[in-house]
């Protein structure tokens, strides 16, 4: 059964230095408040996993929380670069960042394998790309390998499962027993939670009863470790029905993140100086 706790408590209990952490949410429902709490609690040496690192991982990387990034698209959507991510890869600031990169289809299937309790997933993909060679036999820990179909003899691609220590997601609602419900663009959050050993779900509101809603994903309480009330916790991304995407923030992030000093000031003013759940 999920425990309903404060955001600070959830992060303290669920996320430890050195953990592999997947904070998911595909443009929609990105768990920013939880990400900021991880920065505030100064977690270090995390392996950060996420299809689209987005601003949330730009912030965590710039704050020095990450040792490794596993991802498939690291840009500021519609705006340009993630400058903190680039600074880490291009100049090792604030610390060196190991990267393991895939395509979206590959990452999605790696989560599916993790959620399914399988060591790998199969897809048509990667053939002829540089990603195949990066993650193949020459890699220290290969995550892409060709596989022969036992029925047709066709050669397909196997990708290694992702099994994070912790998954962190944001949802619209939970009830008082910790059952979680989210809708709209659902990304890979269900797969990430089911693939992980532990999970933290922040929610816009906690209600007495979850009304049925067509197309909604429900994660029963017994699949979730911690639920924390964090209204607005997806900002500057959004929670359909509760908020709209703050596109201006995404545009403004470009200038803040381009400059190490401006970023450091932003961290001090907007994360360290602010209580949990309010940044």
């Amino acid at each position, binding site marked *: 059964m999920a425990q309903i706790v404060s955001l600070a408590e959830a992060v303290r209990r669920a996320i430890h230095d050195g953990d592999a952490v997947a904070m998911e949410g*595909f*443009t*929609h429902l990105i768990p920013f408040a939880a990400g900021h709490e991880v920065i505030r609690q100064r977690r270090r040496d995390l392996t950060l996993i996420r*299809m*689209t690192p987005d601003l949330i991982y730009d912030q965590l990387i710039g704050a020095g929380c990450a040792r490794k990034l596993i*991802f*498939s*698209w*690291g*840009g500021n*959507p*519609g*705006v340009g*670069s*993630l400058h903190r*991510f*680039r600074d880490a*890869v*291009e100049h090792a600031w604030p610390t060196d960042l190991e990267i393991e*990169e*895939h*395509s*979206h*289809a590959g990452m*999605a*299937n790696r*989560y*599916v394998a993790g959620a399914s309790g399988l060591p790998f997933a199969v*897809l*048509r*993909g*990667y*053939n*002829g*790309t*540089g*990603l195949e060679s*990066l993650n193949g036999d020459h890699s220290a820990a290969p995550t892409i390998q060709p596989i022969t179909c036992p029925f047709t003899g*066709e*050669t397909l691609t196997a990708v290694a499962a992702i099994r994070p220590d912790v998954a962190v997601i944001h949802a619209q609602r939970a009830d008082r027993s910790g059952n979680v419900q989210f809708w*709209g*663009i*659902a*990304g*890979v959050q*269900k*797969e990430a939670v089911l693939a992980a050993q532990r999970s933290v779900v922040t929610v816009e509101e906690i209600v007495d009863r979850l009304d049925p809603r067509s*197309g909604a994903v429900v994660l029963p309480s017994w699949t979730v470790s911690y639920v924390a009330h964090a209204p607005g916790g997806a900002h500057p991304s*959004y929670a*359909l029905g509760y908020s*709209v*995407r703050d*596109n*201006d923030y*995404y545009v403004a992030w470009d200038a803040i993140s381009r400059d190490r000093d401006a970023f450091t000031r932003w961290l001090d003013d907007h994360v360290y100086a602010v209580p949990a759940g309010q940044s």
Partner: protein
Amino acid sequence: MKGLNPAAISDLAYTADEMMTVAAARALRDGMTCFVGIGLPSAAANLARATHAPGLVLIYESGTIGAKPTELPLSIGDGILAETADAVVSVPEIFNYWLQPGRIDAGFLSAAQIDKFGNINTTVIGGDYERPRVRLPGAGGAPEIAASCREVIVVVRQSRRSFVERVDFVTSVGYGSGPGDRERHGLTGAGPKKIITDLGVLEPDRVTLEFTLTGLFPGVSAATAKERTGWDLAVAPDPEIIAGPTPAELDALRDLQGTVNDR
């Protein structure tokens, strides 16, 4: 927005970027299903839907199928896409059930670098992989869009930096190193059919599959296109002069762009 194209021969003043977006929109046919990348492809696909192709089915990798945005989304997951879609599916589903089996007619992509066989790089430029000179965003949905859509259209501004003999990193495969490579790799889609730039249109040669200049925008010369290409660009014997934007196309495009610039 770039400055006005000084060479544009038309009653209408328009920019090179506007011409490129209009030409890209014209490449899409009404009723097609189209997997749309963000940026230039999204602007062009939405322009097509607002003009000659109202039945164009827009599919974004966020899992929004049949999105009908009234304003240009900044990201592939803006709320307007989910709210106007025929169906919203999970990310594993969009790639596995919808893209992978070859159900989607056209993949619409952009590139940081592209080579003469239409291979696309959006990963790293210069240096080595571990410490590149420029770290780009990476693959996203592009490798499988390039592999599995029935055909691919690429929209990219043309320069010696972006049009290179060999890409520094093959993120998404076009024709690999030439004829037979897509088959060898088991890629089910036909590959890139057009590269639409701010100068004109390139199409693959039927035999060599090398991208050749087949169309020029009004006022642009083949010499300029060759100058702005990092390989020895082949030019079709009689490249088509592509008509400039119509007033209706230009109005529709500016209406769409206004929805982005106004916010």
